[in-house]
């Protein structure tokens, strides 16, 4: 069978050595014709048909980062040339772990398989290796918790490392969850409790992964633990220390809507249920033990050790699960919305805390008011539970999303949580008007569309049109936008603006990328091994991704991935295959395997 190979890039010009790849393809059996395609070359099927006829080609192999883009033209061409149109085969570098320009060997291997019409993933099966039974889960948000519980429930040891002093991640901050509106705490806290009670889970909070050595199946990891300065075993969260602590700073957990002390517990249901000292704020720590230290005296159980030092833990694991989640887009970057300047322009998370029953305002939606901070003698805007409630609230979608200037991608959850906000506004402030400004309403999940209809029925004005500007005209916020479905320009006063800020990869990912050798995409999210086939595997054997760190997701999808990685981990433990790792597989081995498999499969690929 005469095979023609066409090599070209489509998604982006990576500068990978296409010549070399083409050169390799020329020497493959049956390959009679090799041609380089220009970047995103526009193809004319008719011309291609002639080329195929002249070269008498019966099979076409398209190689590149995403060669599928060239396929329809070639399929058409083959048909026009009177050949079997199904004989177009893809050698997708991006799909098979040859995404980076310098992974030439892998790229060649992918072509070698395509030329024989054998799916690469069928050929490239990792060799067995000894896999240690313990697993490291990085990040204890809902994804990490889910993964840890699944693995531990199967009786395998799990080290769960969390950067913050408590587990629970962002979900613990939420009030209600769409579309069922059941409260996040009610469904999350039991899982958190389960984690802390589980005998197979070792929880390491307030810590970061410092170094990763070793090979798939046998990783040696150093975890750096920041001193908690409170013994979680003995602390009963009695609150005496906080009462006496003189230092108060903004609470991160309440996204700076309220204050906390230097020794504090992020939230009542925190796990571990123990206080923690913020070394940056603590007078004692800052003064090297010269000043303060009253909490130590007050603690009835003597579990506060302000002199405790940071330390490191070394652990050996067979698999690593990345579940580092996300951060919020910094709304300050979009000046026209006035976030940071106008006190009552809130981010979604701030609003989330505000509506949360256990939040700073006890679930009341209030306008921020000036208050004198006695400690630092400056006036600052605080959310006072007694503060006035807004008469009109506007929610702006896609803040920092769907815009290459900030993030080109859709953050996937904003539409729905914005609708949820609208519901909460209508529920808590029936007199207030509520407007949503959206571009496309993305209600794709189970029960989402119905939820949207319900919110509309509740009287929320849903306006298609991205807001251009939020400004303050003598003390009154004014919002400017277009209501394009009614072909109107809208400009009206609002009391509160909630920005549905998008999601961005958490900053720690860069370091992890280096440590674990797991590539990230252009947006900074971790790249899965194969978008369709292996969404939770990575190019690095024994390293998995779950949840948001791989791309924005809603809770059900995150949880599903959390469980899915558990499957990969358990499988690799019981079968001894360091999941997805091909590093120990040489090009020649792949070629031989491909040859053997070629015989087994029908020419059209056996797909149907």
């Amino acid at each position, binding site marked *: 069978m005469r095979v023609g190979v066409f090599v070209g890039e489509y998604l982006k010009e990576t500068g990978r050595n296409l010549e070399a790849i083409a050169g390799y393809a020329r020497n493959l059996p049956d390959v009679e014709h090799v041609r380089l395609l220009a970047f995103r070359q526009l193809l004319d099927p008719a011309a291609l048909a002639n080329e195929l006829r002249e070269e008498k080609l019966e099979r076409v192999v398209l190689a590149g980062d995403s060669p599928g883009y060239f396929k329809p033209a070639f399929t058409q061409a083959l048909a026009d040339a009177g050949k079997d149109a199904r004989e177009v085969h893809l050698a997708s570098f991006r799909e098979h772990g040859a995404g980076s320009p310098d992974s030439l060997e892998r790229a060649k291997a992918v072509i070698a398989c395509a030329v024989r019409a054998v799916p690469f993933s069928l050929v490239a099966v990792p060799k067995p290796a000894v896999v240690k039974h313990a697993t490291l889960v990085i990040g204890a948000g809902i994804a990490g918790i889910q993964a840890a519980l699944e693995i531990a429930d199967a009786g395998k040891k799990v080290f769960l490392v969390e950067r913050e002093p408590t587990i629970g991640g962002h979900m613990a901050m939420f009030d209600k969850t769409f579309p*069922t*509106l*059941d409260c996040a705490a009610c469904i999350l806290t039991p899982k958190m409790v389960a984690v802390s009670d589980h005998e197979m889970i070792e929880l390491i909070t307030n810590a970061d992964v410092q170094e990763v050595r070793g090979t798939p199946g046998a990783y040696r990891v150093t975890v750096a633990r920041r001193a908690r300065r409170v013994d979680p075993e003995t602390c009963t969260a009695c609150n005496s220390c906080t009462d006496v602590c003189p230092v108060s700073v903004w609470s991160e957990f309440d996204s700076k809507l309220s204050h906390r002390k230097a020794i504090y517990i992020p939230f009542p249901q925190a796990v571990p249920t123990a206080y923690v000292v913020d070394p940056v704020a603590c007078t004692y720590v800052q003064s090297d033990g010269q000043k303060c230290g009253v909490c130590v005296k007050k603690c009835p159980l003597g579990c506060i050790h302000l002199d405790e030092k940071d330390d490191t833990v070394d652990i050996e694991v067979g698999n690593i699960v990345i579940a580092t989640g996300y951060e919020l887009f910094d709304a300050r970057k979009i000046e026209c919305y006035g976030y940071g300047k106008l006190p009552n322009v809130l981010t979604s998370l701030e609003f989330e805390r505000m509506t949360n029953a256990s939040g700073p305002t006890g679930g009341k939606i209030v306008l921020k008011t000036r208050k004198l901070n006695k400690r630092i003698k400056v006036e600052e805007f605080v959310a006072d539970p007694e503060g006035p409630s807004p008469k009109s609230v506007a929610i702006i979608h896609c803040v920092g999303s769907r815009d290459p200037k900030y993030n080109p991608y859709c953050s996937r959850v904003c539409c729905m949580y914005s609708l949820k906000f609208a519901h909460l506004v209508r*529920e808590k402030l029936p007199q207030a008007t509520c407007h949503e400004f959206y571009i496309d309403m993305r209600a794709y999940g189970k029960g989402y569309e119905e939820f949207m209809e319900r919110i509309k029925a509740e009287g929320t004005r849903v306006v298609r049109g991205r807001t251009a500007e939020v400004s303050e005209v003598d003390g009154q916020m004014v919002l400017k936008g277009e209501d394009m479905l009614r072909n109107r320009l809208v400009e009206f006063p609002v009391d509160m603006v909630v920005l549905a800020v998008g999601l961005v990869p958490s900053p720690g990912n860069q370091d992890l990328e280096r440590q674990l050798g797991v590539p990230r995409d252009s947006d900074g999210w971790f790249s899965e091994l194969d978008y369709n086939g292996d969404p939770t595997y990575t190019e690095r054997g024994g390293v998995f991704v779950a949840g948001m760190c791989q791309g924005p997701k809603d809770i059900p999808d995150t949880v599903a991935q959390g469980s899915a990685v558990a499957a990969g981990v358990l499988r690799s433990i019981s079968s001894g295959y360091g999941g997805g790792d091909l590093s120990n597989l040489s090009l020649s081995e792949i070629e031989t395997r491909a040859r053997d498999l070629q015989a087994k499969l029908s020419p059209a690929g056996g797909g149907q």
Partner: protein
Amino acid sequence: MTFEPKIVGFLCNWCSYTGADLAGTSRIHYAPNVSVIRVMCSARIDPTFVLKALADGADGVLICGCHPGDCHYTEGNYKMMRRFPLLKKLLADYGIENDRVRLEWVSASEGQRFADVVNDMTERVRALGPSPVKMDLATDMAER
């Protein structure tokens, strides 16, 4: 003031009780007159439960199960369905109005329907006024 009937509801665990929960999670508001007792299946509801409730002062009894064909236990609700007419006869003999005891099908996804059923039932029973037959029923029960 208006008479507020006390109604006892027997709900099957899989459809109706879930449906009632759904009404709550969806914040669908309905009359507070029905207090729910959970049973695994409507088939479990022994006629004596109903008599007992009426005897102890309930002004009405609401029985809910999965829609015919949807029973978690394949056909429990059919059993209830067959049992019900007999029960009604018995109650009629006791002189209990038809509207006081009622059998409804509410599925796990019918929060709204549950609310409607409760509201409607409450209205009807309120219209009927307090249950007449507490005492004599009680004596009967004692003999049993």
